């Protein structure tokens, strides 16, 4: 597999009252095309900042991010971010219109019935066909995150940047959405960068896990996760992996 996305020597600090606080220190790793990569670390390790740098929402102090050799300079629909916050859907648009929004600005000049069909296709994928005409305020947290996922998919990005999208959900809904995400990823073969602080989630989802440390945020270790799919949380190998990594 060849390098697709590469993060090279990225440093970043936040301006504070007592000088800058170093958030990320010399982060380097690469991502392969079609890979499911998890960024795992405690809160405050800068994993969200790193994701925002890859999305070009934040600027680096040093270092840069390259996609297929080209330096990334601004946000774009090739890298769509899915946030943890339930407020990421536009409250003034229905679920369907939120998804159609992604298609319209995807750059293609599709007519409205075609767009609607595409949006319905993705909403069906995330099992939201019943609530097309609902407004986000009428949805549960899990439904909002599904809709956000559908919107991201509808933009047809090359890379999905997911910032603990299931972090605020109850564990049952969370597992359902993890399974759903794996299915979608296996069908669409998108590259996914998934930020989480939950080891179990990383083990269930990712091909590789980048373990991060805090103060300042840095890469501690990069691990292959070769567990066979479909993965089960009670499987002996899974538990062994879990124990090994959590003892690190």
């Amino acid at each position: 597999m060849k390098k697709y996305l590469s993060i090279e020597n990225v440093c970043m600090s936040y301006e504070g009252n007592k000088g800058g606080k170093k958030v990320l220190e010399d982060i380097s790793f690469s991502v392969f095309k079609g890979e499911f990569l998890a960024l795992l670390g405690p809160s405050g390790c800068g994993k969200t900042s790193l994701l925002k740098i890859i999305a070009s929402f934040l600027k680096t102090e040093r270092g840069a991010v390259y996609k297929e050799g080209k330096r990334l300079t601004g946000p774009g629909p090739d890298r769509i971010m899915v946030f943890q916050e339930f407020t990421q859907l536009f409250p003034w648009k229905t679920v369907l219109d939120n998804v159609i929004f992604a298609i319209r600005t995807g750059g293609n000049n599709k007519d409205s019935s075609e767009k609607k069909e595409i949006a319905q296709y993705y909403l069906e994928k995330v099992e939201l066909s019943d609530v097309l005409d609902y407004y986000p305020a009428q949805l549960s947290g899990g439904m909002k995150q599904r809709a956000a996922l559908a919107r991201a998919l509808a933009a047809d990005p090359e890379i999905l940047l997911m910032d603990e999208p299931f972090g605020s959900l109850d564990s049952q809904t969370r597992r359902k959405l993890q399974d759903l995400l794996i299915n979608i990823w296996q069908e669409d073969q998108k590259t996914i960068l998934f930020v989480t602080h939950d080891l179990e989630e990383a083990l269930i989802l990712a091909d590789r896990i980048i373990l991060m440390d805090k103060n300042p945020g840095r890469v501690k270790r990069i691990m292959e996760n070769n567990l066979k799919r479909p993965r089960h949380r009670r499987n002996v190998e899974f538990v062994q992996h879990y124990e090994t990594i959590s003892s690190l």
Partner: protein
Amino acid sequence: MKNNKIIQRIFWIFLLALLWQILFWSGRFSTLVFPSLLEIGRTLIQALISGELRQQLMFSLSIILQGILLSLFLALFLSLIAQFSRIGASLLDTLLAISHPLPGIALMPLVLIWIGIGKEAILFIIIHSVLWPLVLNLRTGFSSIPAIYTLVGKNYGLKNLSLFFQIMVPASLPYLLAGLKIGWARAWRALISAEMLFGAINSIGGLGWYIFQKRVFFDLPGVFAGIILIIIIGVLVEDFIFSKIEKHTVIKWGIKL
């Protein structure tokens, strides 16, 4: 709950009307300065049917509507410029600081000299009353948009103008509506005063002028008929039109302030 509120309101209005009528029956005041409710009601209905009051009402409403629409476009345009130009923003904020506290009525003598009397003069006063609260609220609204909306907008490829109209304007609608409410209240007051001052052209001078003219002829039922109509319009717009708009937008979206 809401029905209860309406019933309470009707009850109080009925009680106040009854008090009025008792005062009238007591005969303590001359009927010339203290007309009976019945007479006021009769005058109101007659003036509406004969078209005399209706024409004045239409004049007032059309002028205020034009004023509000023009102000809305102007406010959007100015805050658009301020959003994308630092110099524009600093100029607009200064203009806002100067003009917002200035009551429209204070400008009337000047308007009389510069523009003269008539529709344009009233329109000017209305725009002055509506524009600044609208701009102020839009500026506040833009700066309180949750960052996530603009991030998502940019992520999906929106830039400048499309970001402004597709994300910033709808996201700040609660503030825009609040500004419109304040603007309406101020414009309605300014309108009535301006009409009294500027008088009529071809006997059509609006509700304010109608009241003023009735006073000249010492027609107090006429004066009260005009006042009651002003109250009714005010209540209808604030309690009915604005709450309808809110119900179908910001309340439905769950982003009411």
